[in-house]
């Protein structure tokens, strides 16, 4: 059996997720041994070949990027979105709170009118094309990434946690951030990160997005206990909860 052909493409982002892959180091050699890396770059001729697995980093912010991601989708059997920018638009979605002309003007001044500086509201990858698997987080969790790739190579369906960060945080035996008077997003955010931020004594700010079915009743009970309202919780859903759009399907 020939090795699966894997390609990585990046769109608008900080490239921290790709650095997470680089930082796998020893493991990356195993990974490279198991697959045929056909592309690990932007801007090469993605129209020239097909791949079994396309890995997408970053969000879609320009009209031509939509054409590009559609072209990649049409040539890939499986498409994986990695990191918050790709899975839900990430921090880039904050831009959507502003008028696009104002964004250009603010960054580039009068030169912002130049055609090549065109910018559009940010979209997550699944707002444009179908996404088969998501590796959540900002940046993505590298262990989760290798787990997903490993599952695909073995023909298994990866299991992505669909319970809140609180579950993992409890297992770390952390004192609840709410006890410190902080509005922590743990109760409604998807686990899988190992509760890294609360473990570093900092509240969760939701970089893995919502769990599929957040238990709002339980969240309300927690908030009542600490004398806080759902509106206050929503006010904290700003960095990664901003303008989360409808998905492709």
């Amino acid at each position, binding site marked *: 059996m020939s090795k699966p052909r894997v390609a990585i493409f*990046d*769109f*608008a*982002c*900080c*490239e*921290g*997720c*790709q*650095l*997470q892959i*680089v*930082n796998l*180091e*020893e493991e*990356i050699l195993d990974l490279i041994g198991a697959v045929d890396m056909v592309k*690990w*770059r*932007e*801007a*090469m001729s993605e129209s020239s070949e097909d791949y079994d697995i396309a890995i997408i980093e970053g969000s879609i*912010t*320009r009209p031509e*990027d939509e054409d590009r991601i559609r072209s990649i989708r049409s040539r890939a059997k499986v498409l994986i979105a990695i990191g918050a920018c790709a899975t839900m638009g*990430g*921090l*880039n979605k*904050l*831009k959507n*709170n*502003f008028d696009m002309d*104002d*964004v250009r003007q*603010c*960054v*580039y*001044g009068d*030169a912002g009118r130049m055609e*090549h*500086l065109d*910018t559009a509201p940010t979209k997550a990858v699944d707002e444009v094309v179908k996404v088969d698997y998501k590796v959540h987080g*900002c*940046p993505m969790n590298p262990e989760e990434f290798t787990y997903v790739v490993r599952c695909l190579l073995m023909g298994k369906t990866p299991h992505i946690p669909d319970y809140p960060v609180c579950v993992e945080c409890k297992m770390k035996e952390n004192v609840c951030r709410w006890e410190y008077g902080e509005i922590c997003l743990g109760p409604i955010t998807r686990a899988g990160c190992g509760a*890294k*931020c609360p*473990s*570093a*004594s*900092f509240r969760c*700010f939701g970089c893995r997005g919502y769990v599929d079915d957040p238990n709002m009743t339980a969240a309300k009970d927690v908030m009542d206990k600490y004398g806080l309202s759902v509106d206050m919780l929503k006010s904290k859903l*700003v*960095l990664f909860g901003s303008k989360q759009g409808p998905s492709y399907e």
Partner: protein
Amino acid sequence: MSKRITINPITRLEGHGKIEIFLDDAGDVERAFLQIPELRGFETFCLGRPAEEMARITPRICGVCPTAHHIASTKCLDDLWHVDPPPTAKKLRELVYSAFMCEDHFLHFYFLGGPDFVVGPTAPATERNILGVIAKVGLDIAGQVIAMRRKCRELIETMAGKVIHPVFGLPGGVSKGITEEQRLEFLKTAETAVEFAQFSLNLFNDVVLKNDDYVKLILDDAYAHRTNYMGLVDENNKVNFYDGHVRVVGPDGDEFARFAPRDYTDHFAEHVEPWSYVTFPYLKSKGWKGFVDGPDSGVVRAAPLARCNVADGMATPLAQAAYEKMYETLGGKPAHATLAFHWARLVEALYAAERMKELLEDPEITGTDIRTEPTRTPDEGIGIVEAPRGTLVHHYFTDDNGVLTKVNLIVATNFNAAPIAMSVEKAAKGMIKGGKVNDGLLNMVEMAFRAYDPCHACATHSLPGQMPLVARVYDSTGKTIKELRR
């Protein structure tokens, strides 16, 4: 009519960064410049947000140096709320920052810039990558590089939550301290880092300095610019990454200015070119004289060698010895050789490792007083750190509620944008004569460009290790007459 050559490096972000070279009627280089889309609208979408979020938002500008943005932002927030963190908090921040500098400098030396020297500047491009470095130095050493970087990252993750996009910095302090057990474990990491930095300097000595051709290349005038330099220094005018005053020296090495971060706007202004996305900071009192070097130019370089040039030395003994040796070979201070940035990077990695050790041997590091709660009304804050690539400035204005009303970020690559353009132009002038484009152009341009470790294009694209470059030469009618590709 002029000819136009476009070199497209692989770019981050939205994919339109490129080097453009214009030829005059005689076919010689008239102008060369670099275009980079640096920001994704961060200045806009920060407005109206609570200032304390900046320590989480700004690291996401760049996944390669998030720690630099996180710490610059945290310091800016201290200043904004007029709060002085307790000594333990400052030391914990500096410890994380030193581990980051060490890790990042090793990443650059071995994976990015190093291949040019370790494998050799004239080696085939297919060998000038991390695999070529492994073949040259051996698998054992490659394993050490990997292990060393991993240990530094473990330290950062334990203390700061995440290596990429840390969360521990708060206005007035940090979120978490370290235990005695952790201190002892990190001390081992620091000791290994000191040894490894010394080993790396020895490797540089054996492979590069013992080869006359390499030394000639470093000292070659084609890679030199007599510019001003800037960097943070401590109270003894020694290199400092985390804190201190900004010192600027002229091309002759004399102190031109020394000021507190708060006063940076008195000394710097930003020039805007119609063809570029980036602003070009310059020394206000010298003025913007264009893309030129020399004593009258306002262009300033910020990078490892710039920091060494502005300082009187290094604050730790082993790094100081390495510093002295470097200037002995380079023919005194300041050194203008762009390719010596790589050497200065190793001297700095040794300092960062020694500083980690010092901080971990300080009894205060395990203190529990790690935060001073801000109580005053915020208004304006400025935070400056030395990022691996050079000076990084965060400047915020807020209303009384701490909601951002104005944000200015000057990243190291802003300061270096003009020098990078100058270096590229100089390299291009040497390789393009009378309309003839030497095939070595890409190599030379790439080496000049990569010495700055610019915070775009190359860093996370390090596998398989070479920066793909495309140069197109157009004739006056816009037809492609030559294409160089790698």
